[in-house]
């Protein structure tokens, strides 16, 4: 029941086959033309996205794949060696460290952020009013500072000399930024990631909650459900698939983390390796070793991981089942 309601009704024109045929042959041509236009409409809407996807997503990936097949050798010059780069990249001594760093970061960041997003969105929705509206804005504010700016900001936050949180850092025994960052980089990046990304998702989940049918929620209350029960048993299951959406959208961003550790490293020289994350390692191959083949291979490997996880999440959560059910 709820699924159709969440999805809303399909656009009227998309199901042309279901419409009754016009009886007069004179009007048939016009009807056919209109039908053709309607059939084409979705493609026109999708076209800008598709063009960008091909130009800036698929084409570079294909070129990256092509590049990854060649090696530059001191003696032999450019050589077609389809597996060499892949083999060297996957056995690189830095990859295990980078992968562990990124895995720790994603493991700290994603679950805690998911819990936070849903907790705050459900609380905001349970007590609507001016206060909740103000808080929605407050939660969104940190998200306005992203990427490199956020990394700089956090560099100040963890430097006891200048941080507004220096009493807290004192309490933790942190005497300088080097101590704060070395060993805690995943934690700092996770905190930064939550601050940057949570606000936007809270708004989206809140909007989804606001679109829930009131009659269902009222029925639950009339049946004697407490606020907690309404939140956990009724509202959460109806918006839970947003968790999958958040996972898919942020997992790739998490595994491809680049800007934050790069900027953070400039403040504490020598404390964060320039190959801290996998994406940084790929960048390092291209820019510091001049080896675009290896860089392409590693970037594609990252892309594959992102794709596999996205597909896994989509199929495990039956993410698209509503659409399939309606078509």
């Amino acid at each position, binding site marked *: 029941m709820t699924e159709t309601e969440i999805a809303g009704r399909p656009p009227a024109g998309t199901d042309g086959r279901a419409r009754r045929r016009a009886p007069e042959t004179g009007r048939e041509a016009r009807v056919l033309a209109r039908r053709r236009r309607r059939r084409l409409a979705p493609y026109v809407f999708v076209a800008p996205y598709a063009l960008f996807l091909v130009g800036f997503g698929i084409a570079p990936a294909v070129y990256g794949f092509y590049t990854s097949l060649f090696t530059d050798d001191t003696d032999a010059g450019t050589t077609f060696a389809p597996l060499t780069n892949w083999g060297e990249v996957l056995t690189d001594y830095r990859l295990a460290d980078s992968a562990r760093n990124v895995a720790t970061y994603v493991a700290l960041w994603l679950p805690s952020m998911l819990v936070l997003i849903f907790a705050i969105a459900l609380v905001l929705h349970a007590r609507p009013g001016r206060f909740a509206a103000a808080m929605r804005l407050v939660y969104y504010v940190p998200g306005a500072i992203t990427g490199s700016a956020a990394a700089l900001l956090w560099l100040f936050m963890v430097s006891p000399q200048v941080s507004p949180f220096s009493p807290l850092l004192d309490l933790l025994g942190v005497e300088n930024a080097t101590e704060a960052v070395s060993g805690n980089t995943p934690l700092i990046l996770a905190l930064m990631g939550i601050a940057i990304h949570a606000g936007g998702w809270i708004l989206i989940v809140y909007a989804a909650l606001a679109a829930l049918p009131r009659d269902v929620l009222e029925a639950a209350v009339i049946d004697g459900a407490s606020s907690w029960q309404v939140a956990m048993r009724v509202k959460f299951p109806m918006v839970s698939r947003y968790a999958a959406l958040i996972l898919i959208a942020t997992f790739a961003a998490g595994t491809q983390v680049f800007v934050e550790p790069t900027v953070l490293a400039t403040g504490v020289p*020598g404390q964060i390796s320039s190959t801290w994350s996998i994406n940084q390692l790929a960048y390092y191959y291209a820019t510091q070793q001049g080896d675009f083949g290896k860089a392409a291979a590693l970037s594609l490997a990252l892309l594959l991981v992102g794709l596999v996880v996205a597909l896994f999440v989509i199929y495990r959560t039956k993410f698209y089942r509503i659409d399939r059910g309606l078509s």
Partner: protein
Amino acid sequence: MTTKGGQQRARHARRVTGCATAGLLLAGCTAPGASTGNGDNDEGATSLTVWVDSTRTPGVERYMEEHPDVDIRMTTIPSDPGYVLTQISLANQAEDGWPDVVFLNTPEDVASLAAPPFDFAAPLSELVDDEIVDGFVEGSLSGCTFSDVLYCLRNDIGQTVLWYNQALMDEFGYEVPQTWADYGALGERVAAEHPGYIIGGLSGKWGAGVYFESSGCPTRDVVDLTTVRIDTSDPGCVRAAELLDPLLANGSVSTLSPSDPAFAQIGQENRILMLPAASWYGEHRFKAAYESPAGEMAAAPMPTWEGEDVPYSGSVGGGAFVVSRHSAHMDAAVDFATWMTTDVDHQSEQPTYPAFAEAAEAWGAARAEDPFYAEDPFPVMKEQAPLIRDTFGWVRYANEWNNIFNETVVAAAGSPDPLIEAVEVWGSRLTEAAESTDYEVTR
């Protein structure tokens, strides 16, 4: 399978799509201020594209004034490690946009630029007069030289000296140590009698360059462009690690990075009793960042290691100029790089110790009267300049050398295990780093 067709195909495809890839990487196809017409040889006018950091820009302006016939297009580049390699890498990919001359703030980059796949640095042996080459401080061009071929001209050198606070040393009744054994013993006394004062710093390239390199621990001993010697079981490594063990435990040697604000605070509170560090620390760190009181700092020769009587220096920093092998005006480019490194008037005004001997004398004379120092530091700097250990070469894994040192040796500073264990881990990871940058590693 190597085919010329394959190579050309790859080249072509790269040229066509190179911009797209580069654009995705850095949101820009052309390197900043790149000369777009290196190949277009304008009749008459000689135009050079040069990339220098902000410290070098007044020098370039002066060259422009003195050489109105040369059209210099100067781009100021950041001094971030890796920046030059990134830009050259993109220019190589686009096969366009190389500078004619570039200043390296991290001179180790020349090891990458001289070798494939960069193949950027022009061999200078035939282009620079022997007389000029011989005028550089002894050993200062060894980093630029691979298999007897010169690939860069040194701007300044970062030989280490033993900086100390003369006023504090007198007040505490300490003598400046002449051997590392004395230095270690003094560290124990300082920790007991004046806790909170420091006699050294271990972090990063500063610590590794001072202790392990002056001791001759072979972690970057360049044999040629593709061979390097790494052996952390060498006695040179063991004695440095053993010296540091008690000093790290008692806190007289700090593990903070000298560029950390917390380290600057130690300086501002006047708690740096001694600091073995590069010659440029006087101007850049003690004067500017640590705000040491005037008339207190002085430089002493490096302590000697057991069984030796030469006070070997380590090395930290010191820039170099590289000429592009793609330059259409090779002679003008070499002339520019030579002027920047050897012009006595220009070099004597630089903040760092000039690599060209005659310029160094003039530089020293200009600083002899500086009231900031308790005594003129130049004679010591000059003495130490040719004494940089020859095991300290310029390698393609210099960045990892620094990072891995922090991740292993500095990270182990607080642990009760002997430091040499961490040094050996540093060595084995350096071997991996060297092999992944196309070196054959010998012991």
